[in-house]
């Protein structure tokens, strides 16, 4: 019987018939009627026996700004990989809103649904200008033929100008992204997220390598984004987390150790043990 069950799991109708399903278009009316915008339930991911995520359960509310902290190897980046479709979990479900099963979708489809991601190491297109980087990230029809024929409209130019202003790179707009400083690259990548205009932003270590002043501005920016967007920030910098976080989730060994506001979490004996007891 076990084989039969395996077969059924592998041949689930909505997965095997995916190619026949109609093209998914960005849905502005994402169903968040029950509160959360993202549901991660019983997620397990193992690499060669090592469980990077172990029965993880996490819910992100619509419009929330959530910080995720945890020691190295706690599974923070793996969790982002699962949400964005880079890694398939061995078990569990991931839902975006009430209806969108993210495990059915690949990376570009998930991005089109409105989930944007900033990587831990700033990844911008170094050979292209700042302006071109933002243009590439812009929310638009991303199929091949429309992209070949695409010309920037006035409205889109304005939007790029606006974002350049927010990230403070207007003066560098025509220089190659590879020539920017580390902090500026981080900002450019945040700008690219803004151009995508996603419902949910996943931000991996946004202030690594930034100066104090830059960190402050990043905190302001992320705070201003919450509300219209849901933001999930993974960060090591406790000072920074304290300055932006309303709710903090602590991951440890692939599952949630504690959740609450910063003070609650910091006084939680389990958290103290994990962070200080090593």
């Amino acid at each position: 019987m076990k084989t039969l069950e395996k077969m059924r799991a592998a041949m689930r109708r909505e997965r095997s018939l995916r190619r026949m399903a109609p093209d998914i278009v960005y849905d502005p009316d994402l169903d968040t009627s029950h509160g959360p915008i993202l549901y991660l339930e019983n997620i397990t991911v193992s690499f060669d026996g090592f469980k990077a995520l172990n029965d993880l359960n996490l819910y992100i509310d619509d419009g929330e700004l959530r910080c995720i902290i945890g020691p190295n190897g706690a599974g923070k980046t793996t969790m982002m990989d699962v949400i964005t479709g880079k890694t398939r979990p061995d078990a569990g479900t991931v839902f975006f809103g009430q209806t969108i099963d993210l495990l059915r979708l690949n990376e570009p489809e998930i991005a089109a649904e409105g989930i944007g991601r900033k990587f831990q190491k700033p990844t911008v297109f170094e050979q292209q200008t700042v302006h071109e980087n933002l243009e590439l990230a812009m929310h638009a029809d991303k199929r091949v033929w429309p992209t070949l024929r695409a010309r920037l409209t006035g409205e889109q130019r304005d939007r790029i100008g606006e974002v350049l202003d927010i990230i403070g790179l207007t003066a560098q707009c025509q220089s190659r992204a590879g020539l920017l400083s580390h902090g500026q690259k981080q900002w450019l990548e945040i700008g690219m997220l803004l151009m995508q205009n996603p419902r949910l932003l996943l931000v991996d270590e946004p202030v690594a390598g930034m100066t104090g002043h830059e960190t402050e501005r990043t905190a302001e920016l992320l705070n201003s984004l919450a509300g219209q967007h849901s933001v999930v920030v993974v960060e090591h910098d406790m000072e920074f987390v304290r300055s932006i976080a309303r709710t903090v989730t602590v991951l440890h060994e692939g599952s949630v150790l504690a959740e609450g506001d910063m003070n609650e979490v910091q006084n939680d004996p389990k958290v103290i043990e994990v962070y200080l007891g090593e």
Partner: protein
Amino acid sequence: MRLFPSLLDNDRGGRIFMGLLGVVCVLVPIFNLAVPETSPFHMSTYTVTLLGKYLTFALLALSVDLIWGYCGILSLGHGAFFALGGYAMGMHLMRQIGERGVYGHPVLPDFMVFLNWEKLPWYWYGFDQFWFAMLMVMLVPGLLALVFGWLAFRSRVTGVYLSIITQALTFALMLAFFRNEMGFGGNNGLTDFKDILGFNLQSDGTRIGIFLASAIALTLAYLACRYIVDSKMGRVVKAVRDAEDRTRFLGYRVEQYKLWLFVFSAVLAGIAGALYVPQVGIINPGEFSPINSIELVIWVAVGGRGTLYGAIAGALLVNYGKTYFTAAMPEVWLFALGLLFVLVTRFLPAGIVGLLRRRGAEAAT
């Protein structure tokens, strides 16, 4: 070139190349047809054909630069698409021979009579029509690239692995085309062509005509490639080359971009092959040999990839060198080619174009 003014506005190299090609296209017919043979300024038909052959190689190099220079797909099997286009053209030219073959069969080409075949294999049908053959010149390489690319890119085969399987592809095709039973003339290939569209292939006028057709094809292909790389699609493709995963997370279906670029490039290579065959008068399985595909990557590397005109310059220079060396010092050529590749990779990663640019930038400061 006022027809496409905006395309070349920011492309100085392209404008220079177009200008030179235009001048050559005017001068070559004059020196070949109008200047009497006794004059020292007369250009022999041999030279015209040689130049025409270089132009088809330039077109082939352009097709490789489009995918390698801009999208990072290093195909070591692009010679296969070139050869397939060549075979499609060769099949048409074979059927044009008609009763003038050695055996005088009205329909069957000589090699089929020789093999005691009774009738034409089905896949030779239609090739007596020029339009059909031209369609196949583009369709056959395009379809092969579509199927091959779909499988390879969907499975996310990249880098060295992709290069190796493209190499295997062209090798497999070579072995297949060597077999007599395939019906493409076995190791002799297709040859003894008589005429094209009713014009005698040996006449000077026809040779000039094919030379000009090659120049026009190269020009149009250059403009098409320039249009693609300057469009937003071109920027997406460059993004794929530099950070494939990142591009995916921005919502682009990377596989689709690679696939269509690869197919377009294969079609260009097929057209190059079709123009090559009537000029050299033969197509045989040797054109599929892996070494050809590797050589052609060297042309692009020498010229400088990711510029389009660099690939053209590289193809012309290396092939001129090949013509010269294989006549003057035949045993040296392969060593010279290998050395050239090593030197370029080591000292000129951006090729000759990169060197000229650097010199230009130094002179400007």
